[in-house]
């Protein structure tokens, strides 16, 4: 394990942090959650700015729990870059190296190397406040990487940038991370960003871990209602287990009965939720998609690449996302279909 947090807790007058997770060498682990969920606090606990009340932190199997930040060998990148305004690009990247007592020529070589890595060669003499947001963020990444840290910590590194640049820098960070094979903890509140960049996602809420897993698991196999909501699943129908037929679990609900491809064995009549992503549904009846439910269209939003249709079922509300335009009439009653493979059961 390259990063390991064991039963870390921290009590505040109005907040409690309780986290445990780990990541392997070379992985990107994302802490995903809404603002105020404790993800930045967790990052600061790893970096050593906040002392946890209990627990252990290991970086590359070295216990650092009681070490001050400057002895931990972590590279840290901030949302607002926090470049030293009194130094130029060279001075910023060289700062950590100087702290380690590198000699002049090695520092020069290392800074040169890093500027190539972040694709800003010949930027040494530039004044940091005159760089664009994207350039500042790259320099911040280079500065954090310069002293060869054991782990790279990124605190919402892209949230101050505009949408287009965000996507570009996202893949850039991933490229650099892969090239150096450095273990990375990445904090974000943007689920798309988290899924795109991570090997492993830790969804946090109110100071604790809701679910940890791969991007695919978090997206398609949420374990809690919070995670389901947070990754954009709006369709949750309360249901009970009605039986099992091979791989298929049968559900009954106010809206009718459904088939779900779900391996776990669950007792009959267990209260669960049927969850289905809006984009996995279609309007109309189809043989291949054997689950059907009827609803009345209450709203229709055309978003250019897709259309979002809101429906009212007997008890629940429902959302369908169709790609491309679609003519729909509010008040019309339609069938919504989806296949058992695309559904998931949430037990709570």
């Amino acid at each position, binding site marked *: 394990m390259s990063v390991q947090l064991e039963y870390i807790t921290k009590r505040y007058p109005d907040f409690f942090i309780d986290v445990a997770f780990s990541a392997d060498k070379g992985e990107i682990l994302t802490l995903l959650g809404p603002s105020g969920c404790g993800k930045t606090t967790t990052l600061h606990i790893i970096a050593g700015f906040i*002392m946890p*009340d209990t627990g*252990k932190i290991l970086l590359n199997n070295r216990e650092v729990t009681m070490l001050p930040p400057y002895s931990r060998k972590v590279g840290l990148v901030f949302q607002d870059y926090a470049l*030293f305004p*009194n130094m130029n690009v060279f001075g910023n990247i060289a*700062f950590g190296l100087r702290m380690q007592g590198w000699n002049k020529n090695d520092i020069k070589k290392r800074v040169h190397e890093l500027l190539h890595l972040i694709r800003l060669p010949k930027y040494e003499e530039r004044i940091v406040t005159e760089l664009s947001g994207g350039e500042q963020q790259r320099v911040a990444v280079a500065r*954090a990487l310069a002293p060869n840290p054991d782990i790279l910590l990124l605190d919402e590194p892209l949230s101050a940038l505009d949408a287009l640049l965000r996507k570009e820098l996202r893949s850039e960070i991933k490229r650099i991370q892969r090239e150096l094979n450095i273990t990375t903890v990445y904090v974000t509140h943007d689920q798309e960003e988290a899924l795109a960049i991570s090997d492993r996602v830790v969804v946090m809420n109110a100071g604790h871990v809701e679910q940890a897993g791969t991007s695919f698991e978090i997206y398609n196999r949420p374990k809690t209602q919070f995670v389901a909501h947070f990754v954009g699943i709006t369709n949750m129908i309360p249901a009970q287990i009605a039986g099992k037929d091979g791989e298929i679990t049968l559900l009954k609900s106010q809206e009718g009965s459904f088939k779900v491809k779900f391996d776990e064995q669950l007792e009959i009549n267990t209260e669960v939720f049927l969850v289905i992503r809006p984009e996995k549904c279609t309007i109309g009846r189809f043989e291949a998609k054997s689950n059907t439910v009827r609803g009345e269209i209450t709203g229709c939003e055309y978003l250019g690449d897709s259309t979002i249709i809101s429906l009212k079922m007997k008890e629940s509300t429902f959302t369908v996302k169709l790609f491309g335009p679609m003519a729909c009439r509010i008040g019309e009653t339609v069938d919504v279909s989806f296949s058992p493979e695309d559904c998931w059961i949430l037990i709570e």
Partner: protein
Amino acid sequence: MNQANIEVKHLKTPKTGGKDAALFLFPLIFLSIFFYFPLVSILNEGLTNETGKLTLSHIIRVFSDPYSLRVILFTVEQALLSTAASVLLGLPGAYLLARHDFRGKSIIKAITTVPFVLPSIIVVLGFVIFFGNNGVLNRSLMAAFSLENAPLKILYSMKAIILAHTFYNFPICIRLVSAVWSRVNPNIEKAAQSLGAKGFRLFFRVLLPQIMPGILAAAALIFIFCFTSFAVILVLGGGPKYSTLEVAIYRFAKVSLDLKSGSALAIVEACLSISFMYLYIKLQKRVSFAEEIKLQYEKKSLGTILRSPYGVLAVLYLFITFILIIAPMLAAGGYSFIKRSGWAGGTSPTFEWYRKIITDISASAIAVAYRTSIRNSLFFGSITVLLSLPLGTTIAYITTKKRFPGRGILEAFAMLPLGISSIILGLGYIKAYQNLPVDITGKWYAIAFAHTVIAYPFVLRAATSVFRKINPRLLQAALSLGATPWKAFWRVELPLIKSGLIAGATFAFAISIGELNATLMLYNPEFTTIPIAIYRLISSYNYFAAAALGTVLMVICFLVFLLIDKIGFEVT
């Protein structure tokens, strides 16, 4: 992971208490000995009788004695009139600065810093020379209209006090109000216009309520300055008839040597001035909470107003204010190159006064040579900088960086010297060290410590604002890159706060070098400073020599002003 296998240990935060305590110690000890002890001594003197028993009789006497009552009323009266005059004269300037762009605007803006840097004794000097019965203005008028007698009798009257205070303080109104005015969201005015408001209604119903907090804050600050004004009253008031609390306390302490009455009066004054200060801080907070917006007025060129029907008024205003600011200082500068043969004799140009300064010759009015007074002033200025810099910076560091219960009390504790006038501080020193084996009054360090107490709040303010501006993540970044807290301070924090500290130090220097009040209470002739020398020379009607020393002081203050302006320190 199995929970049973994980050893859950309770961690302790590393102790930093010891270092913090050491940090607190320096300001605490310094202020206790050189500010709070003198202050308590005044309280003790004013609130006890001869046998040491607690009594309010001295305080009651302040309010029943016709003399002291008249002093209090006059203090308030002249401060109110001066404030009203300063605000009224300042408002048009605030409007011009906030809504117009013109060449030389930055100079006018910079000039509004002058009252904060210019020593009051220079104002007094300029006024005596310019508005005096035998002054530049009267002589010019006499020559122009071939008059026998001086037409304007301004000096030694209420008029002189109000005029000098207005000159001194109206730039404060321009500065504060134009800052608020230019922050007003222009769309609000457009909205009001689209709803049919125009002219006076637009101004009184929409615009005025928005700039009112700025006007009130400026008025409060000016009122405090005039309420505790000393040199202007002492010289331009010209006698007991126009005594304010400050002057009365000074006379009790230095002339009639009645420390009991002086202390009782000082307690009353301090209570009043601290309440005014509290009010000002409240008003100031309302100004800074005012909506911060990116929208700016489209600035009109000055030409538009000059061509409008009000153009004549605008020109007249600019002319009068410019004369009011520049003329007394120019007159003082001019006088320093003149000597007069005999009382009513003609004048001739001369470098005599400067030659005397350089060759270290003294005048009979002052006990030391001119050059020595300059040396003394520079010496006290340097000591003040050396002491107030660590004092102000330490307190700023504690109050901005540390979180602890009672921080607000500590802040108030550290800012109280701003609410206590320097005359009262001087009185406190006299009283506090009277009964001790070491009498520090008349010693050089008494003056230096008094100057430090007066000047350090400005270092504190400058340091606080730069500390607040530093992104705390810069320090975290430095720490995560392997810098120890000490190295992070030297390599990241210090370079970033340097300019603020220089501004604060420069300001402290200016305060010390222009300080008259506490110095007058504490000095012995050996430690005559430039302001004291000027005061002595004015008292003995040697205006030319006073003007020469005044010019030296103005030059020093001008350099300070240039430095502060370059760094861009917010003086209010």
